[in-house]
């Protein structure tokens, strides 16, 4: 399938520019926070950005209708991989969320987010009423529930939360009656209480209690939050300068180049750096969200909306987490944090948005 000239003209170059800008900004801070470690993380991230661009391009050249209609097979494959990784994958950092492919590792759960978006787009696009009916709600719950349980078992609370966000976004868009909302809230309360008692691992509980009182455990999970807050707070207005943050350079800050990259920005470039990243993100998200008006059909609206929510949710949780307003759940900052799987998934999500947007006039 060729991309014709008209499609090419409809590509949102501004969105691509913003995303690349964020990604390259990430590379700079990955360098700053890991140059003293072996492994050349910033170079690897550059390679991953390249792979991400290629993947997004592949996603873009095929009409999203194709991806949506094939999503059911991706979904089946995803369930199979998640189940298999649960059984076979070797334990990495206490979770079973990594799968090794030859020389690189990948987190299937990251890509599962994108697949989930496609599946939901397919399911919800069928329902054209103002509100979702019971059958479709139940079906969507089931479709989301299976991978959710598998990911919870890994256990990967962060990804599971993202799943819930995507899924919640789909419901918001589909429309829920008050009655359904009440039932769902009651259900989630029961599941939540049950999960706290039986489902959550001790370390996960600890993360939640630590949020309420970080000083309680300054050497354990509270340590990360404390060090991150100190890093950000001590950045002041203009920061300590590139590669001059004592918290990041002297390794007080945990997971500096991955989940806590934004703390490095806060420390080394201060509130000014934080503001610039927020501004860039705001522009990117606005560009994404407001693209829904450009979608030619319901599936396209769902795709753009859920992809936007995916990136928004990760960003918000990350900035809340590193300043101690949300438990440490291991959700990286999209485009900025080091990590191939996350980068790939977010680039593909962007690719989907661009795909829908560029085909606004395409004939079905």
């Amino acid at each position, binding site marked *: 399938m060729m991309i014709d000239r008209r499609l090419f003209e409809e590509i949102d170059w501004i969105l691509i520019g913003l995303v690349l800008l964020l990604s390259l900004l990430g590379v700079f801070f990955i360098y700053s926070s890991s140059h003293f470690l072996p492994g050349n993380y910033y170079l690897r991230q550059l390679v991953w950005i390249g792979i991400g661009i290629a993947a997004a391009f592949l996603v873009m050249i095929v009409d999203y209708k194709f991806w949506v209609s094939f999503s059911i097979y991706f979904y089946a494959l995803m369930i199979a991989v998640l189940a298999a990784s649960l059984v076979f994958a070797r334990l990495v950092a206490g979770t079973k969320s990594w799968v090794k492919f030859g020389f690189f590792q990948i987190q299937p759960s990251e890509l599962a987010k994108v697949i989930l978006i496609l599946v939901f787009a397919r399911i919800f696009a069928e329902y*054209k009423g*103002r509100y979702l009916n019971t059958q479709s709600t139940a079906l969507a719950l089931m479709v989301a529930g299976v991978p959710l349980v598998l990911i919870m078992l890994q256990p990967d609370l962060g990804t599971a939360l993202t799943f819930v966000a995507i899924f919640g*976004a789909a419901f*918001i*868009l589909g*429309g829920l009656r008050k009655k359904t909302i009440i039932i769902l809230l009651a259900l989630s309360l029961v599941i939540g209480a049950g999960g706290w008692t039986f489902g959550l691992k001790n370390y996960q509980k600890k993360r939640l209690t630590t949020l309420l009182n970080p000083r309680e455990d300054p050497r354990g999970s509270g340590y990360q939050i404390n*060090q991150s*807050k*100190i*890093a*950000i*707070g*001590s*950045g*002041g*207005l203009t920061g300590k300068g590139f590669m001059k943050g*004592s*918290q990041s350079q*002297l*390794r*007080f800050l945990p997971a500096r180049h991955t989940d806590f990259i934004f703390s490095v920005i*806060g420390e080394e470039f*201060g*509130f000014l750096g*934080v*503001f610039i990243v*927020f501004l860039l*993100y*705001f522009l990117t*998200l*606005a560009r994404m*969200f*407001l693209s*829904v*008006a450009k*979608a*030619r*059909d*319901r599936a396209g*609206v*769902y795709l*753009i*909306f859920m992809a*936007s*929510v995916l990136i*928004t949710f990760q960003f*918000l949780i990350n*900035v*809340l987490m590193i*300043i101690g*307003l949300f438990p440490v759940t291991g959700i990286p900052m999209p485009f900025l944090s080091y990590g191939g799987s996350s980068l790939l998934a977010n680039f593909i999500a962007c690719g989907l948005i661009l795909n829908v947007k560029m085909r606004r006039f395409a004939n079905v």
Partner: protein
Amino acid sequence: MPGDKIYEDLSVVVRRANAVFRIVAVALLLVLGYYWKAQILDYKRFWDLAEANRTRSRVVSAPRGLILDRGGVVLADNRVSFKVSLLRESVKNAAVVYPAVSKLLGISEEELRSRIERYKNLPLFEPVVIKDGLEPEEIAPIEARRLEFPELEIAAEPRRSYPKKTLAAHVLGYLQERSPEEIRDNPGRNLRISDLGGRAGLERQYDDRLTGQDGSVVEIVDSVGRKRGENPMQPPTQGRDIHLSISATLQGKAEELLGDREGAIVALDPSTGEILAMASSPTFDPNRFIGRFTPEEWVQLMNDPASPLENRAIRGLYAPGSIFKVVMALGGLDLGLITEQTTVYCNGSIVIYGTSRACWFPQGHGSMNLFNAIKNSCNIYFYTLGRQMGIDPIATAAGRLGLGRKTGLDLPGEKEGLVPSQDWKMKALKTPWFPGETISVAIGQGQLQVTPLQIAVMTGVIANRGGRVVPRLLLDREDSPGAVSPATAGQPPFKPAVFESVIEGMWRSVNDMGTGQAARVDGLDICGKTGSTQVVSRERAEMLARAGKPIKTHSWFSGFAPRDHPRIVVTVLVEFGGGGGAIAGPLAGQMFRTWKDSVGK
């Protein structure tokens, strides 16, 4: 139906999507506000926390002041050694770290844990010294594996050393680690854990003066405590030196003379009270066990029945024996009970209070006046005098010469000894005094107990013709508290004339074929008195039995020289030595000779 259109009506979903975006926009603004609060409003607090994170203050130990003899010979010095400390806050997993550290340093894990247990109440950031006294070549293999052990801190520190080894060990004392209680009880002195402090001898007496002021370095550290840089330091100041009245030559001679014998030698200048030598035997080498740990060697010394750690010169209690006869003579003359011409006939024994008592010379000395009684150390003369005097006047005379109380030497742990009296016996033993006991006391036996230093001071008072002697080890006059010009202070204990009579007897003892003749030195007018303690106390006898020693008499000699304007007192005590004239006398003679050849010139 809207669905019939080519482009379906998506306005509802689009509206919902836009509503969500508006919520997102507000959320972003709120979160940005929170960052503003943290970075702008709370900036100072977080900045301080970041600074506290990356800096750590390290203490630089100050060297102790030197201890020098009267001629400037260094008796206690400092040399560089290394210590290894454990930063407890950096220990992530004790089950892994402790065995590895104990293997690296060659200390048992049990010892390591008990050491850490001892300091469990101190803040975690305080390093705990777990090995010290290391030489540079011992530190190299530890330094090489530094990165594997971020919880270890290696630091150089000045370590006390005693270059003359055993010389004056009892006077100098030794160091031990300060206890947590000592640190807690002295908040003003700025003591730190793992500090070494004076535990015995002068090191303890003048600990304040010898202890320097520690300096500090502010280090930049990373999250695991590795040092990444250093800020300028506040240098430590060394403790103040102290100069002793001890003469290394005389001290060395005294120790050499005692050799393997158990005993003590004290030499002092009667005109000033300055101690010239104070030896106690057996002795020890403090170099071999100073430090923070209690090595086996120290425990062995503590448990040795011969008590090598005890300073016999100030803590050994002995019956004075015949030396006490000079006290009797002074008291008797002063009371007018005898004069120089008073004679007593000695036929070798005498019956007093129904008991027959012998002179040490069974054939008898014949007719004895005071000079000859002292010269020959005739028991019969002093039995007779003792019966005349009675116990309380004897006790008074002994007390006036400083017996039965501390001499005031600037060394901790001095003992008082005992001068018995009627009052004392009633209080201590709840029985009345028996007159027969007085007779034993008259020749320096019975319950009388004195230290060699007390005898030296008493001899000094006689040499001064009554002038007071306050012994001291510190040479710096202005630094010695309470050191008044001793020879002039206070009332003389007896009329000045009586001293000359006793001194004449002591002179004859050494120079006129008396019991002290072995102490004679050509060209030096030595006056002295011998003593041999014949009775061994029950405790002492038991101790001897434990040590497997035969019960022999202790051997005494105490004398001064020259007769006019005396400048040195020498007191010798040899435990189980035998007769005072045969053993202690020659040692004292050697001391006088050495003094004459060195200090006395």
